[in-house]
């Protein structure tokens, strides 16, 4: 991971030199421009956090920046300037944009909100704020904005160092945060929001809070900008300024943090010179550059600039695995109870009156032909909103209408059919995120120790992923990815484990070792496992009980021998059953 250190240190050093030496090296015009650029860079950091790291494309950060700037302008214009009023304006510039951002977050993020929808909402926000400012008459100065208010009386050099310090502090703090264990959750949300929910993380709340913080930070940057420049114009709140921030971040490199900082400063400086000499051509070049970067270099330019400088080596301290203490809360009674569960889409019943129970130590194989409703059954257990009738209890508690992240906290872990993991995170990072609901991750530190339950360590050892803790999940083989997802699910310390076709796409030897793991989970560690599987041979060997699902109903459930040897199952598997059923169904 030395690579990431170099890619941080070089830009950080550059910024530091620039901030310290600026006033000695540049003329006043340049210094002036740089001060503004530093404040813009803070806003760009918030865009990068939201878009580059968390995957929420936002055009709306200008609204918060502008709101902060207007806090300065309005207080200083209408109340006058004093240290008390300056403090008031400063506080307001954090609180008002922060609250506004929380509201926007509430509007944008909820169960089932498409990312595209959130993006469009972020477009509406600056337009609304802009219109409000325009309609504010004398109070907001309407289209000409507020000018000529009294403000801090600092030398330009002092302003420079203050602005530089604000930018450096913001960037370094963000840098520490995104590298911390908690910061990795942002990337996890970007990579795979669904997996996050099924690891018990409430992604809507996380994103809303993040937006609140980013709004407050952008607001403060706006306040500083307004206080420095003495001019607050409605354009600062507008949608074009918001998209300009995206251009800065996209060109220099989303998700790289220092890229957007440097990119913003460079582009602002170049713009301020070129927009006087060749204004339209410069905008044109910027636009063409932006489009080409999006199409050809989606990671932006910084990674390509830095790459030749960094050698790949893995010097950083390896993560140590250790055994976590498990809270002993053995389940009394049934682990899962489904009572007359029904799922229908309109008039089409996918599941009809499913009643089944699972106890700790059970390994229930769920079999049936394509379209029998097996995956739907799993979904009805994992998401309270999915079923249309009947009730489900997990560990004695009613599922109700609970969302996946709450269901996980009842003691349910769901492994999906395809390996559902965080592509760009390493194995250890994936597992640490899976432990979030058990062990609160640090906001500033990267822990060198990863504590996992004994059975997770077992799974990792058997499948060999304990040797690959530093490998990015996307570079694992398919079998290893399946093992990683299983480990992540088990790291939740669930009582009920749903396994949806875990052997699909595995080689024969992988199948064998994963089979042994499943029986150990049920028999040794007393999980209640529900296994959906096509391969009856595989199920036969490890299951304690088999449920046969056929066209949405349970055709049969019972012991392995009883089910496997029944005429009914033989018929289904040789295709003679279908005719019998349908002659009756078509009537």
């Amino acid at each position: 991971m030395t690579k990431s250190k170099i890619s941080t240190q070089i830009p950080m050093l550059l910024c530091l030199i620039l901030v310290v030496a600026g006033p000695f090296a540049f003329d006043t015009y340049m210094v002036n421009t740089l001060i503004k650029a530093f404040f813009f860079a803070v806003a760009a950091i918030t865009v990068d956090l939201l878009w580059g790291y968390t995957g929420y494309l936002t055009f709306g950060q200008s609204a918060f920046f502008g709101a902060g700037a207007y806090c300065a302008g309005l207080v200083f214009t209408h109340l006058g300037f004093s240290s008390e009023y300056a403090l008031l304006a400063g506080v307001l510039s954090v609180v008002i944009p922060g609250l506004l951002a929380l509201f926007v977050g509430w509007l944008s993020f909820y169960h089932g909100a498409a990312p595209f929808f959130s993006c469009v909402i972020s477009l509406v926000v600056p337009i609304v704020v802009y219109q409000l400012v325009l309609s504010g008459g004398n109070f907001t100065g309407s289209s000409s904005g507020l000018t000529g208010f009294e403000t801090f009386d600092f030398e330009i050099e002092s302003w420079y160092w203050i602005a530089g310090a604000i930018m450096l502090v913001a960037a370094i703090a963000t840098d520490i945060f995104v590298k911390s264990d908690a910061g990795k959750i942002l990337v996890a949300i970007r990579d795979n929001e669904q997996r996050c929910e099924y690891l018990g993380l409430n992604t809507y709340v996380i994103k809303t809070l993040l937006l609140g913080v980013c709004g407050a930070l952008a607001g403060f940057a706006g306040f500083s900008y307004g206080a420095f420049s003495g001019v607050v114009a409605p354009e600062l709140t507008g949608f074009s300024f918001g998209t300009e921030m995206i251009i800065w971040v996209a060109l220099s490199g989303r998700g790289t943090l220092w890229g957007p900082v440097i990119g913003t400063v460079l582009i602002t400086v170049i713009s301020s010179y070129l927009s006087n000499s060749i204004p339209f051509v410069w905008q044109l070049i910027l636009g063409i550059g932006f489009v080409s970067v999006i199409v050809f270099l989606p990671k932006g330019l910084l990674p390509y600039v830095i790459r030749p400088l960094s050698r790949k080596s893995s010097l950083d301290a390896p993560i140590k695995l250790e055994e976590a203490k498990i809270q002993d809360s053995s389940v009394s009674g049934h682990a899962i109870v489904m009572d007359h569960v029904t799922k229908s889409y309109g008039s089409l019943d996918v599941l009809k009156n499913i009643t089944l129970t699972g106890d700790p130590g059970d390994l229930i194989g769920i079999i049936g032909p394509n379209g029998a409703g097996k995956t739907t059954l799993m979904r009805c257990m994992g998401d309270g909103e999915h079923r249309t009738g009947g009730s489900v209890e997990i560990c004695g508690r009613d599922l109700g209408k609970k969302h996946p992240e709450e269901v996980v906290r009842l003691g349910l872990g769901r492994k999906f059919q395809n390996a559902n993991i965080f592509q760009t995170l390493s194995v250890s990072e994936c597992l640490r995120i899976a432990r979030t609901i058990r062990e609160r991750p640090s906001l500033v530190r990267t822990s060198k120790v990863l504590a996992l339950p004994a059975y997770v360590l077992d799974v990792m050892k058997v499948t060999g992923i304990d040797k690959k803790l530093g490998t990015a999940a996307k570079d694992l083989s398919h079998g290893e990815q399946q093992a990683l997802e299983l480990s992540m699910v088990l790291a939740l310390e669930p009582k009920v484990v749903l396994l949806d076709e875990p052997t699909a796409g595995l080689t024969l030897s992988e199948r064998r070792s994963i089979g042994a793991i499943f029986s150990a989970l049920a028999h040794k560690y007393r999980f209640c496992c529900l296994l959906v599987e096509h391969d009856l041979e595989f199920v036969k060997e490890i299951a304690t009980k088999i449920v046969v699902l056929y066209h949405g109903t349970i055709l049969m459930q019972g012991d392995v021998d009883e089910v496997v040897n029944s005429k009914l199952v033989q018929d289904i598997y040789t295709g003679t059953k279908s005719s019998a059923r349908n002659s009756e169904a078509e009537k």
Partner: protein
Amino acid sequence: MKATALEVENMTCGYGNAMILRDLSMKIISGESVSVLGKNGMGKSTLLKAIMGFLPKARGSVRLFGFDTTRTRPHNIARHGIAYAAQEQPLFTDLTVRNNLEIALKHPETFDQLFRPITHLFPVFANRLDQPAGTLSGGEQKMLLVARCLMLRPSFIMLDEITEGLQPLVIDNIAEALKWERESHGTTMLIIEQNIQFALKVTDRFQIMSKGALVDSGCCDEDGASEKILRHLSV
């Protein structure tokens, strides 16, 4: 020596990096009818999707009538005279029966002429052309699917579990239609099945698929073919 209709060589493919088919080879001579049987989840449908161009191939090649189609896009493969009936969502349920039949025709004006034989094979459609396909019964939808394949005048038909969930009369009707098609046009067929009786009736030889590989094969008219297949399919 007849020309080769389909030649799959050492094909490995799947979804993402999950490989469902490993090193699979198969060859079908022009005019032949072949069934692939096997249990659920063994990769049968994946084979058809791969041939049809929906899945990228990690290794190996596919040739249709001498053309290398390993990397050809599905619509171009379809234009090589391939008619494919998928197992899931194979019809436009909001479009009418006529639109479903017409949409793939190269020359829509020939519809009436092409539709005439269909009315003999599946009389049920004769006066229901303007009904949305979604309002047909399950059996009628499957018949419509077969009708669509036949109307394309294809040189190669691929059917994915066409008999799934059908009553015996409808299955017989479909079998008759496929037989007629082979007798009158000599169309090559590749049929994925669970229904052994149907497979034996409409194909010349069968192959058994298990865990992404072809593990056994035989001729449909040999003695004990049915028992041989049953051994693989039962548990």
